């Protein structure tokens, strides 16, 4: 009997229990919130219940299935032109993914480079980069976007460049601060002794140490990018119809909100859920990388 007890405790069960504990520590809530967006964004065209651009003028502003007058043919109802809202939301997920990922990577690339160079070299380069950052920081984001968008007009490129212009500053400031600390560390001095070039020191020795911070920032900024996209679209400088974005769905649905509340409501919920997911994931990553800064 005794041997049986020992056997069940050690070799068989313990790895499983450990495994289970590891699984439980994963960020389940953010994953659940973000999964639909990622899946719809990648496989959207295979999953659409309807074509998101097909206009059905016989069924404009049909309410969601569970309400009077709704049908399961259009689960979340239709928009002002009778297009299926669920399919349009799924198509919006694709655009949201593209906007978020491309803007975040571009902003990080520019911001991290600027921050590393400013922090590592110091002096006049540092001064110039940081003064530019100050200026961008001084103008409220939405006003800067109006200034740029008003000059060049709306569209995908305006959205992308606007998000990049207002958000690289954050990376630059944070990365500069960390680089200032890192460049005084022993391994940088040793790399210099070993005759490494500045580029090599920056890319091989400093950048890897910046990675945790960058990943956290990028996660948080991905959500922020969607909020900016929605705001830009609202002021008329965003991605133009007939394309579909969540921001566009809210703006287009707004005139009909008293008769078709579901159009702006569900589109806004899609944004909120996604941003909430990235915010929670960002917080989780921050705690994971830096246990000292754990929220109490």
């Amino acid at each position: 009997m005794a041997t049986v007890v020992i056997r069940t405790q050690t070799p068989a069960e313990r790895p499983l229990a450990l495994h289970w504990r590891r699984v439980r520590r994963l960020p389940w809530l953010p994953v659940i919130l973000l999964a639909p967006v990622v899946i719809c964004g990648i496989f959207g065209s295979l999953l659409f219940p309807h074509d998101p651009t097909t206009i059905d003028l016989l069924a404009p502003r049909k309410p969601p299935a569970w309400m009077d007058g709704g049908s399961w043919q259009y689960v979340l109802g239709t928009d002002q032109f009778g297009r299926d809202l669920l399919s349009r939301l799924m198509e919006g997920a694709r655009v949201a993914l593209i906007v978020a990922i491309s803007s975040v990577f571009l902003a990080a690339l520019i911001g991290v480079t600027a921050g590393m160079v400013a922090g590592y070299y110091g002096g006049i380069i540092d001064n110039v980069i940081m003064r530019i950052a100050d200026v961008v920081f001084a103008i409220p984001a939405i006003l800067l976007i109006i200034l740029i968008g008003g000059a060049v007009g709306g569209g995908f490129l305006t959205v992308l460049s606007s998000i990049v212009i207002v958000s690289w500053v954050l990376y630059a400031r944070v990365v500069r601060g960390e680089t200032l600390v890192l460049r005084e560390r022993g391994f940088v001095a040793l790399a210099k002794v070993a005759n490494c070039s500045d580029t090599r020191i920056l890319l091989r020795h400093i950048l890897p140490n910046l990675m945790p911070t960058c990943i956290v920032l990028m996660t948080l900024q991905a959500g922020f990018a969607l909020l900016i996209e929605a705001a830009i679209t609202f002021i008329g400088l965003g991605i133009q119809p007939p394309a579909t974005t969540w921001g566009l769905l809210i703006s287009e649905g707004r005139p009909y909100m008293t008769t078709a509340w579901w159009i702006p409501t569900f589109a806004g919920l899609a944004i909120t859920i996604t941003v909430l997911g990235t915010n929670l994931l960002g917080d989780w990553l921050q705690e994971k990388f830096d246990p000292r800064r754990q929220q109490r």
Partner: protein
Amino acid sequence: MTRYFLSRLRLAVITILGVSLIVFVTSRMSGDVTLLLLPQDASQAEIAAMQHQLGLDAPYYVQYYKFLVNVAHGDFGESLRYREPALGLIMSRLPATLELAFSAFILSTVVGLLLGILSARMRSSWLDYFSRIFSITAQSMPSFWVGIMLILVFAVELHWLPTSGAQGVQYLVLPVVTLALVPIASTLRITRSAMLETLDADYVKFLRVKGLHEQFIVWKHALRNALVPVIAISGLTLGFLIGGTVIVESVFAWPGLGNLMVESIFTRDYPVIQAGVSVTSIFLILLNLAVDLLFGVIDPRVRFG
């Protein structure tokens, strides 16, 4: 102190110059003004004459210098739509925007501080969980959507409040709540963590040992220290609020600066946009300068740090 003052002042001046440079560059990107002013069939010579008259054929640094001189005299050009000086238009709309922004500032500071202190005091209570869920959700919602949803619920369905306009206090409620949501969340988060840190500090433990009443410790002693980071971000918060009014005003048809700016996008009234961006940015830079200086006076660590 003088040195700290001067270095801050120099930074503010550089930043203002930077803003003016951005405004200048974007104005040149916005297209050729001469083509707007001349009839479509204008000859090449007429266009050149107009460009010369407007000074557009001068080198860019000369144009920038002239632009700076004009701006220093408060001349941002004429609104293409209203045919009156852009700066005057902006100034006439500014009070309504400031009313909205400052109301939201007061609301967010009071509610954020209160919730932050209470949830730090009652850590892990239902109030604490509510505050934390609230603050992370509030920061995840597009502000104009929040406005639309509030209109749907409180104006369209319940008929408690008007949908839009500005004819009295009841018109202020929904826009201010919409605007204050994010700052409430950030003030709450900062207050909560500052308060938790302070309540752990040795001097607070000493006060407890001394037998002081916990309420007295919290509201008299700990609050003062917890206020420091809240005041520190107040400049940023106001900046956020003034930027946020752009969106919120146009959702609620509030007759302020932001609404005018969004209209100007649609009517391609670029001088108004330039004047609006310049005025708000300079206002915010000076405000942040004031906050910095105030901090230098209050807290010696800032001055010498």
